[in-house]
């Protein structure tokens, strides 16, 4: 693998409206859930990106956030808990012509699927991974996730889980992701911009989206007051970018790292046929 940037994704070739990307199905989400904002942002971003719905596949695991593919008019794959990234990887590697986007929650992506997260960053397959982080397992009704604050009280962990929260951005940068950003569901337009940028950036792009769970973490409604544009300029230096996201309070929005790692090489054109393989077994007499 050489360390050069591969060709950028296709330029827009159609004109679409955000509603062209809506399936019309009614989300199961609670009123006020941050994931509505993410859905709106994705619809806008894909309309702006300009590829038709049938050329896009949304892949997800399990959780409130992972329900998203059903609400869009694109192709979709709603798999098992934690495995969205490998599904998306297998799909993108065999169908590079498709726009593959993996989505899910913090539990799905950082706990049960944490290992895949690291290795998807390493593999750097050209796709977008968008995590709706509400620092809780929403679907199972409010248990601490890897990004939950150490002292957040819950039935299952009275007084708090007592663990240092996981820093997905630092892990992504250190593991080799080529594009790392943070967005906010309360700013669908800003998030749509990030999504378009991330899709167009070659390699594995990761966007951590702060997406409040108003039901189990009502205090997250305050996030809209806490988020601010990142003071960090777009970093090309992995070590410096890692240090910056580790020092950050978690509310800096925008692109935090963009690299130029080459994505995984495309499959070769066939050089042999199955008949050639068969001849290898032959023993002449």
């Amino acid at each position, binding site marked *: 693998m050489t360390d050069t940037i591969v060709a950028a994704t296709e330029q827009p070739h159609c004109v679409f409206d955000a509603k062209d990307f809506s399936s019309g*199905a009614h989300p*199961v989400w609670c009123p006020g859930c941050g994931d509505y904002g993410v859905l709106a942002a994705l619809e806008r971003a894909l309309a702006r990106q300009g590829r*038709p*719905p*049938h*050329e896009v*596949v949304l*892949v997800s695991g399990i959780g409130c956030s992972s*329900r998203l*593919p*059903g609400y869009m*008019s*694109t*192709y*979709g*794959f*709603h*798999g*098992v808990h*934690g*495995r969205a*990234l*490998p*599904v*998306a*990887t*297998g*799909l*993108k*590697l*065999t*169908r590079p*012509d*498709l726009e593959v986007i993996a989505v899910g929650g913090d539990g799905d992506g950082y706990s049960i699927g944490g*290992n*895949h997260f*690291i*290795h998807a960053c390493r593999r750097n397959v050209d796709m977008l991974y968008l995590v709706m982080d509400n620092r809780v397992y929403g679907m199972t009704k409010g248990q601490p996730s890897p990004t939950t604050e150490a002292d957040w009280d819950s039935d299952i962990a009275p007084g708090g889980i007592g663990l240092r929260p996981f820093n997905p951005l630092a892990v992504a940068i250190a593991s080799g992701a080529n594009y790392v950003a943070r967005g906010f569901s309360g700013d669908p337009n800003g998030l749509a911009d990030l999504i378009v940028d991330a899709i167009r950036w070659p390699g594995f792009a990761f966007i951590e989206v702060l997406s409040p769970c108003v039901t189990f973490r009502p205090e997250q409604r305050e996030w809209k007051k806490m988020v601010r544009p990142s003071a960090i300029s777009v970093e090309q230096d992995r070590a410096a970018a890692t240090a910056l996201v580790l020092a950050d309070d978690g509310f800096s929005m925008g692109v935090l790292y963009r690299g130029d790692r080459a994505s995984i090489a495309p*499959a*070769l*054109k*066939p*050089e*042999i*046929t*199955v008949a050639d*393989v*068969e001849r290898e*077994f*032959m*023993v*002449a*007499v």
Partner: protein
Amino acid sequence: MTRASIAVVFAGSGGSGAMTAGAVFLRAAAHAGYYGMMTQLFGAQVRGGESASLVQVSIAPIETQPDCYDLFVALDWDKVEQFAAEIPLDDRSIILADPASGPVPPGIAKSKGRVVALAMNNPDENKLERALRGKRINMFAAGCVCALTGIAESDVKAAIDTIFDGKGADLIAANAAGAALGARAAPALPLDLRLEPPRKAARWLINGNQAVAFGALRGGVRFVGCYPITPATDLVEWLAPHLIKLGGRLVLGEDELASVNMTLGASYGGTPAMTVTSGPGFSLMIETLGLAVAAEIPFVLVDVMRAGPSTGIASKTEQSDINLAVYGGHGDAPRIVLAPVSVADCVNTGEYAVYVAESLQTPVIVLSDQALGQATTVIDPSAQRPAPLARRVNGVAPGKPFKRYATGGDPVTPMPLPGTPHLEWVAEGLTHNEAGLPASGAAMHVAQIDKRAKKFSQFDPGDHWGEVWGEGDVAIIAIGSTIGPAREAANRLAAGGQKVRVIALRVLSPLPLAALTRALDGVRRIIVVEQNHGAQLYHYLLGHKAIPLSAESVARPGPAPFRPSEIASHVA
């Protein structure tokens, strides 16, 4: 007097080259027109320790381990005794050893086999010369055994050329010279091991793992997600370069959860896809197997069974994943389970598995086992191939919304490829409605379970269901590597006047009840032979009332292979 077959062991310490000696003998025999089979034994050391290659050569196809080895060739005696229990020898066996290597160790000597001395080390050689000659003792031994059995030097040379291809002319010449020296030593030995002349034909030299992989390639598999695990690793290591050159992809996942889900992702995109594993990895894949059932995504899962539970014995065989393959997972999750009936059949079963998966949009498990997978065998080329079957991607009924999971009609509903305009659908593992949206009502749950079940009740494997050999009112039912010894046992019993038929199931699930019942017509006594402690196959057949309560079970764990005599003694 000539013989129809011979079973030879080459054994020695790490670096003695016992494996290569066996490989040369087997390939030379194939060049000469014989059938053959080679299996291997390794010591505990991860790499480079003592080893033994077990080679049978015959004028007829070989599908079983022998009861006893005719010839044991000791390249040296260092730690070789540990293999004694796995290498049956008796007083008719010949032990060929260099007296300079020391006395025959007690574990081997207790067989009372006849010890024949053969100077393989040149006593005139100094230490440096010997070091330079390196493993040539193994070539000496291989050349000698080839000459003893009547295999021409030109066939030995052809084998050496292939086996050392790319290692340089000097090395090839030195090995050929070693084999020639061994051949020259043969006439002086007080032994007559000549084989009958074979029916010469060009054949394939292939092991069961390669054969499954090759069958899958023939069937169209162009994506493999995998994670290394013995004894399936060599399958994917063989597959990787071939798949790449065929324009496909092999991706090493971070674990089996990744590999099976990558496989599903590739399949969803329209590429026939496969994952390859053994017991521990298969256990990890079970949740996703259920997803493939529910979302109706085809893929092939090859399980090269090894001794379990847990990590068990990584390198040795057992048939103890039958329950996991047939039942593994939560919910009503029917799947197809196929088991190749021989090394040669691994090719066809591998290809057929892809066709069934694709055409039924369902997971297909290929249950192989280490004894099939790692048996290098000389077989007749596989010419008779299963008829191709393809995925149904077209033929969507008009109307909106598109009902990917439509019920009521043909249970195999069109599965448009992503990229097809206006037919967007979501592969859904939650209970879903016909359009693929999550639904939790009882009616839809039942309707979708019925839809998927109907795919199985309609599935007709035709002649692929299994194989029947022989006749008689006693039947042995077996799968996988147990079939070979069962057939050999039946042949021997038939020679003694007792007719026994052997019934092999290729399709384990859904159980081909009608075909099996026909195959059992006129049978008075049924014996189910399998290599696991819990009698998994026996209980499965009983549960389906495929066999009567009076059927007998011969079930014991691996890793020791069933030998024909063991099965014959149960039947007789």
